[in-house]
Every structure is written in structure tokens, then in C-alpha cells.
């Protein structure tokens, strides 16, 4: 890290660093800024592919924004998404942390094998895991079948027909797929901790619980923060799994923002209107992330 006040030889060569970051900047501009600028423009028009070319569409101002923000279904999609993000990320974090702690502090063989197995869910195509979980949770599906066999009575819980359990099922499916990611980050974080403080605490007679809560957890804070941010950002975009598992139902109680935008922007050809919604969402995420990740951002010198 360059110290303030001292003029490093690196800092005098300003051109080199810009050159290095250039390809990154170009690709992001090319792929993201241009379509995003186009999306902003479109959100101010009343364009739909079924009404003519986009550049000929008149500008209607903020009308789309007002309209989509007052749409009940859009509001519900936001709430659903927040519930899924909250539930899934909490679950992933809790399980990932416990598993990583077990991996870190327990002494047993075959860690490499277990680690490989734990990583497998991440590698399954999300769309297909949606199909699999639909079969597992359906009324005569795997879960009820197991419960029936264990209990000896016919269990026929309609997991996917009741809002709270359908939402839970979606959360569980997402947690299945992405807990490995949390596990990996937490485990990596733990192995990177300096061992001296832990050893010292142990010598002084601290319990394992105290060591974890008082020493490890505070030191893990930065990695926990970034892991939570990354997973929340990713979970916010959840699409394939609920789309295939519940089609957003029952009613629209598991319809996420992505499903909503997909339906209206692509299936119902209301591109301008849906773009306005997407931009609102984007701005909201940027603000929240900016607030949450403030301690993590590098400070410009």
C-alpha cells in the first residue's frame, strides 16, 4: 500500500495504470453502459416492439416511472424478492459458516473429498435445479413420499400451493445451490486468520465458543461483509429457479423482480414500461450497496 505523503515511483507513472485498466473499462462500457443508456432512453418513451421502431417512438417523460411504481404487482415482486434474498442469504450464511467452522476446527480425514462434494450444487444449471426441486416439493413428490414412508400415513402437504411454503421452497432451492459459495468464502477466510491470537486465547483457557465469538468472528468481519454483499446482489436477480419451480405462483406470491421484468419486457412486449422499473431497481441497489460496502471500497489517494 502506498503511503500518503511519500511519492512512490509507481505513482509518477500514471499512464501505465490507466492502460492496464483500459480493456476492463472498454468492455464494461461496451456491454453495459451502451445498453443501459439505451434502456434509460427507452424508459422515457412509450415504445413497444409491437408499435414500431424504437427510435421513432415519442418521448413521454417520467410517465412510465410513476405508472410502474404505483403498480401493485411490481411492489409485490419487490417484497417477494426481498423475502427470498433475506431468507436465502441468511440460510446460506448460517449453514456455510457452521460448515466452514466444522471443517476448520474438526480433525478428520477426507476433507478434500467432502469439499469437492460440497461444491457440486454450484455447478448444476439453475434452470434444471428448478425442475428437480419442483419434483421434490410437489404434492406427491419426494419430500412427501419420504414423510409418508417414515410416518406410515399419507402425507400430502401442498408445499408449492401455499404462499409461505412455496416461498420457503424457493429459498431452500437457492440455498442448496449457493451455500457452497458461502462455505468456500468462510473456510478460506478462516484458514487465512493469523493463528497466534487463537492459540494465545486457548492457552489462557478460553472456551471454543468464546474463541469463535470474541476472536474469530470479529476478524472475519470483512470477508463476511463482502460475502453477504455478493450473495445478496446475486440472489436479488433470482430468476430461473422460481420461474420453473412455481411460475411465480400461487397467484403472484413468488414472482420475483426478474420474473416480473421478464414477463413484461419480453413476453408482454412492454419494454419501455419495464425498463423504467429496471432502472428504479438498479438505482435502489446502487444506493444500498454503496452504503453497505463503504468500508470495503478503496480510498482514492
Amino acid at each position, binding site marked *: 500500500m502506498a503511503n500518503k505523503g511519500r511519492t512512490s515511483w509507481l505513482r509518477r507513472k500514471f499512464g501505465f495504470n490507466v492502460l492496464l*485498466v483500459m480493456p476492463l*473499462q472498454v468492455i*464494461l462500457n461496451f456491454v453495459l453502459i451502451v445498453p443501459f443508456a439505451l434502456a434509460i432512453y427507452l424508459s422515457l418513451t412509450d415504445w413497444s416492439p409491437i408499435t414500431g421502431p424504437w427510435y421513432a417512438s415519442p418521448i413521454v417523460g417520467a410517465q412510465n416511472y410513476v405508472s410502474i411504481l404505483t403498480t401493485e404487482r411490481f411492489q409485490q415482486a419487490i417484497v417477494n424478492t426481498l423475502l427470498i434474498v433475506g431468507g436465502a442469504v441468511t440460510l446460506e450464511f448460517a449453514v456455510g459458516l457452521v460448515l466452514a467452522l466444522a471443517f476448520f476446527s474438526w480433525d478428520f480425514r477426507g476433507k478434500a473429498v467432502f469439499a*469437492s462434494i460440497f461444491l457440486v*450444487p454450484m455447478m448444476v444449471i*439453475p434452470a*434444471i435445479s428448478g425442475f428437480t426441486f419442483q419434483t421434490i416439493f410437489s404434492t406427491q413428490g419426494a419430500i412427501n413420499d419420504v414423510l409418508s414412508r417414515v410416518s406410515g400415513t399419507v402425507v400430502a402437504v401442498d408445499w408449492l400451493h401455499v404462499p409461505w411454503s412455496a416461498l420457503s421452497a424457493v429459498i431452500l432451492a437457492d440455498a442448496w445451490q449457493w451455500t457452497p459459495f458461502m462455505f468456500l468464502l468462510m473456510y478460506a477466510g478462516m484458514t*487465512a486468520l493469523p493463528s497466534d491470537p487463537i492459540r494465545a486465547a486457548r492457552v489462557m483457557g478460553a472456551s471454543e465458543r468464546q474463541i469463535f465469538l470474541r476472536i474469530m468472528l470479529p476478524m472475519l468481519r470483512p*470477508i463476511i461483509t463482502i460475502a453477504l454483499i455478493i450473495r445478496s446482489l446475486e440472489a436479488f436477480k433470482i430468476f430461473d429457479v422460481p420461474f420453473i419451480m412455481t411460475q411465480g405462483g400461487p397467484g403472484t406470491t413468488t414472482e420475483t423482480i426478474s420474473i416480473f421484468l421478464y414477463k413484461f419486457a419480453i413476453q408482454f412486449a412492454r419494454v419501455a414500461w419495464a425498463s423504467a422499473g429496471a432502472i428504479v431497481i438498479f438505482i435502489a441497489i446502487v444506493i444500498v450497496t454503496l452504503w453497505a460496502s463503504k468500508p470495503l471500497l478503496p480510498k482514492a489517494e
Partner: protein
Amino acid sequence: MKGKKLIYYATMLVAALFALFPLFWLVTSSLKSPFEWFARPVVWIPAHPSLDSYAAIFGLPAPSITVVGGVLVPSFYAFRNSLLAAIGTTVAAVAIGYMGAYSISRYKTGGAVTYFFVLTSRMLPPVAVVIPLLVFFQTLSLVDTVEGLVLIYLGVNVAFVIWIVRGFIDDVPKEVEEAAALDGVTKWSIPFRIILPLVKGGLAASALFVFILSWTEFGIALILTQYNSTTIPVQLFKYEFGGGPALGPMAALSTLAVIPVIILGYIIQKQLVKGLSMGSIRGRR
């Protein structure tokens, strides 16, 4: 002590079963006959396991799949396209991301703004910009090309490389570079000859993530690919069985699609945990 070990293994085994159960479902589904795909109550183990689903996805004779009017689309092309897209994205993302991460880490280029800008690339649901993207790509003739897919995947996934690799570079002591500079290594060579070997682990980890994300991406590919660049997740939806999903062939293709990632994961695994443990994603002090 022995009891404790037992608890350890039991816990790990339960977690492993949980992780593998849906995969078990996938593999058994790929061996089921059409009659068992959607049978209720569910069929756990196929009565007469058959490889017909695998044959069907490669356009080989698959007697049991045609009973109600199956669809036979060879999947070679989907595999090829997915491999090209995923490998192309991974290589480019690691190269571009590494340079960017080095610049951001060592020079604080762009300060917080550039770093946050990179983050924003993962904030927008892809479906939100896919129509504008389609309009834009059409003007450049990039629709339905693997190159187009690589470009867009690069844009949305390169952030992972920045996140992971930047932390690694941060952890490389400054003295290493200064010593190299004194030895006469030019500033152009430092990131590639001196730093690169030290952060291999981080590159491997980010490569795996980027590979997985571009290998399994569905929403963008659905809109941007037609004939020439169909990827595996899109190909999945071409298997229908008289109007509903043909679960067997879908499961067969997904099972096959997991294999390359597992191989890559196995190769990278050692680097991965070791690499991640170097501190990296911990963020900044």
C-alpha cells in the same frame, strides 16, 4: 475421542447427502423411462434403467423416448458453443480482470469510482437490459454469435475476477515489486513476471467462478442465441415430449453438463482453497 470422530463424519455425511440429493435425482431421472419421469408418487429408482435419454440427446436411436413423439436434436453443437463461450469468457475475463485488478490494487486507478463501477455490473437483472442489448447487438451483427455471448458474459462476469484477484494483489508485499524494480525489471513486466505467479490461486478461483457462471447462464442466451450459438441451458428447453418438458433428455444433458465443471473444479480445487485463504476477498483493512 472415537465418539467425537463419529459425530464429525456423521455431520459431514449428512451435509454431503443434502448436497448430492438433487444430483442423485438428476442422474436417476436421466435413466428413467418416459413413464417414470412424472410418475406420482415419485419413482426413486428406475425399474428398467436405460440410456435412451443419453442416446436421444445425441440423435441416436432411442426406442423408448419416441413412444409419445419425442424430439431428437443432437447436442454436439450446444456443447461446442457452451465450451467456446465459457472458455472464451474465462480466458478473457481472467486476462482483462487481472490487468484491471493490478491497476486498481497497486495504483488505485479511478479510486472508489472505478471499483464501484465494476461492482454495478452485477447489480442489474440481465433480463432488464436484454432487449436494449438485443437492439444494440443487432446493429453490430453480434446476435446469435458465440463472440457476442463472450462479450456480454465478459461484461457481467469480469467483476468476479476483480473482486477476488484484487485482494490477492493487495496481500503481496510492496517490497517484492520494489526489489524487482531495483533488479531492473521494467514496470511493464512487473505485473506479469513478478506478481502473476504469486496470485495464481486467486486467478484459478476466479476462473472457476467465471466458468460456472457463463456455463450455466440461461436468460441472456435465451434471447441472444438462435441457430448458430445455442448453449446447453437453452438446448435443455428444446427437449419436449408432446408439449411438456422431456425430463429424461433434459436430465441427461444436465448430468453431462456438470461433468466438465466438476473436472475443472477438481483441478482447481487445491489452488482454490489455498488461493482464497490468502486473504484476498477479505476486503480492505
